């Protein structure tokens, strides 16, 4: 899990162009949106693309997104359970 979390943090930094931020700067349990990294709605869409592109996960129920993208930890947990690649 630790390895997946680190990998995910690196992918988030690259996909969202978070310049000057390293994986160590991202608190695994901190909120990704509004507080924490302060991501916005376009970032949320990029994270959905990231999940599909890198892990083969298609999010078909938008209602679940809020819970999945709560933090890096919740994302990693979901990926571990549902990844197809």
């Amino acid at each position, binding site marked *: 899990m630790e390895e997946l979390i680190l990998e995910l943090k690196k992918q988030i930094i690259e996909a969202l162009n*978070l310049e000057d931020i390293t994986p160590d700067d991202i608190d695994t349990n901190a909120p990704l949106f509004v507080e924490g990294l302060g991501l916005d709605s*376009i*970032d949320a869409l990029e994270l959905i693309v990231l999940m599909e592109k890198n892990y083969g996960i298609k999010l078909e129920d938008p209602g679940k997104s809020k819970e999945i993208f709560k933090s890096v930890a919740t994302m990693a947990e979901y990926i571990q359970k549902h990844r197809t690649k």
Partner: protein
Amino acid sequence: MKKITSYCRITDHQVILNGNKLNIAFSGDTGSSRLTEIYRYLDAGYAKFHKMDNLSKAGFLASEMVLRSLDYDLEIPDGSTSVVFANKSASLDDDKRFQETINPNNYYPSPAVFVYTLPNIVTGEVAIRNKILGETSFFILEDFDAKKMHIFIDWAFLSPGISRVLCGWTEYLDGHCDVLVMMVEKDSPEGMDFNTLNINQLY
């Protein structure tokens, strides 16, 4: 008489602010990484910059320098300023980036790239950053044309309450940057006369 009270010129090789070449230590790379070097030089502290497309970055940086030189207070909502830019390649630079994400063999359309596939987004980025509430417009011309730009910048002053217009040429394509951003003010005692001759000279 309207006056050009500040201007900034950014090309692949230099940055000029009000006639003075800025002493920025560029690495060998041009294009996007050069824009990031200018951003770091300015120490703008605006993380959203890194999410912008190159056209918006170029327009943002030139606007930032012009407004700073005028001690513009970006905390106060400003209904007396308009933003009017023009270029010849529209958002083609970002359009091409987006096209790369919709390759049938690797189809992952990027929302973050898509949102910049309109050239007028740069005017919105500048307005948001600086709390500019006046009208924003973007014109696409065949080439740099001071005469046409003079006409449509003049139009912007016809809107009620507009006393100055942040305006100019914001062109970026395939790693090449060609930008002239000016502040034109209606009632300023200082500055260059706002006419096609001076616009051409600054360019």
